[in-house]
């Protein structure tokens, strides 16, 4: 009761302390009564505050990593490129190749830093949840992927999608990452991607099905880990954080994500989102602001 409200009780010596109240109905012979339980939440509040502080520090740390580390990287990349431009005539193919690997390394490091920041933000940003139409979410993800969909001649279809209480930005990100992967790992034929959703009592079960290269069963868990990739960068670009972010988003909302796949046939990514919104503390703060 009173989600988002700060409730306080008072000790006899006028000392205020935070409380939590829960109400439950009680059927009695005299009719319906309400049983109220009032709990001293001091310990809980203290640990909440400690969590909030540690999140603020993590966020600051992530910013430092992403921002301050980029400057030296920029120097490395810029000057190697300048070297190449200025001395192109004096450099043999070995020298050019050495410079290429150095520049490539610096650029990959930059991408990884940006991705780590995005990943950490999933957990630390205050999660604002609201009634969200997943058809709109899908449309926005498709708009963001417009260029890559048309370049690859991919076809995306979907069944009717529900409206539920989630953080729209994160769900757009989730769906966009899954579709983007389906396009990237499409193999020889044009990607055919289908999104659907089915309800059971507790959850909506979403699926994103593709006809791409597929994933071997022994790697089905590993692909959700940070920077874990199954292919070389020459075969398929990317740092390997897309699915780790998806997993974090889904778990933050109280759901699960997994894949069923056949090598050479395609993969179906499944994820659940609870019908009744709940938020998990994956290193996140649990201030949630429900507007329904």
């Amino acid at each position, binding site marked *: 009761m009173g989600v988002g409200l700060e409730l306080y009780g008072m000790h006899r010596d006028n000392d205020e302390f935070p409380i939590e109240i829960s109400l439950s109905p009680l059927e009695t012979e005299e009719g319906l009564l309400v049983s109220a339980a009032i709990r001293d939440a001091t310990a809980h509040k203290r640990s909440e505050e400690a969590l909030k502080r540690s999140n603020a520090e993590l966020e600051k740390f992530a910013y430092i990593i992403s*921002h301050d580390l*980029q*400057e030296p*990287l*920029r*120097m490395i*990349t*810029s*000057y190697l*490129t*300048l070297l190449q431009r200025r001395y192109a005539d004096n450099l043999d193919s070995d020298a050019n190749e050495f410079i290429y690997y150095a520049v490539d390394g610096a650029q990959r490091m*930059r991408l990884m830093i940006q991705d780590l920041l995005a990943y950490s933000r999933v957990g630390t940003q205050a999660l604002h949840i609201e009634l969200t139409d997943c058809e709109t979410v899908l449309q926005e993800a498709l708009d963001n992927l417009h260029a890559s969909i048309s370049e690859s001649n991919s076809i995306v279809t979907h069944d009717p999608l529900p409206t539920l209480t989630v953080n729209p930005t994160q769900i757009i990100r989730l769906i966009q990452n899954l579709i983007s992967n389906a396009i990237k790992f499409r193999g020889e034929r044009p990607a055919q991607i289908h999104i659907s959703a089915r309800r059971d009592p507790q959850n909506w079960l979403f699926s994103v099905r593709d006809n791409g290269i597929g994933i071997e069963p022994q790697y089905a868990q590993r692909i959700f880990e940070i920077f874990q990739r199954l292919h070389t960068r020459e075969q398929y670009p990317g740092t390997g954080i897309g699915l780790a972010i998806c997993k974090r988003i889904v778990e933050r909302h109280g759901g699960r994500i997994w894949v069923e796949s056949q090598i050479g046939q395609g993969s179906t990514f499944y994820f659940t989102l609870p019908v009744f919104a709940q938020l998990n503390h994956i290193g996140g703060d649990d201030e949630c602001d429900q507007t329904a």
Partner: protein
Amino acid sequence: MNAIKPLEILLVEDNSGDVRLTREALKEGKLRNNLHVISNGMEALDFLHRNGIYIAAPRPDLILLDLNLPRKNGQEVLAEIKADDILKRIPVVVLTTSQQEQDILKGYGLHANCYIVKPLDLEQFISVVHKIEDFWLVMVALPSRQGGNS
């Protein structure tokens, strides 16, 4: 038609790597210019006010200002420039690595003429410097040169 006098550009930047990159980019550009480099905010203001050793300093046609400076930071320098009746007419291009919304807001709030986030890529960096030249020193009419340079 080129300007008869080279254009005076003041670059306030403490990162010598970025200074060199800006110099190289301006060298590749079309305009004859004198680049004055000052690496901290206090000296930059001395230069602009023609104090002490800067008594004969030219008035810049354009100021490129980094926000992250030692001692007086870029925002304070910007505020002082735009508070001075003469200096405030000089266009100030804030060229910095921060893309944080609050820094951008603060920059425009202090009357920066424009705010540019330094690109991470060399080609883009050079292109940005050339575009700054083209826009602020060719297209735009500046107080001391009526009607641009053509």
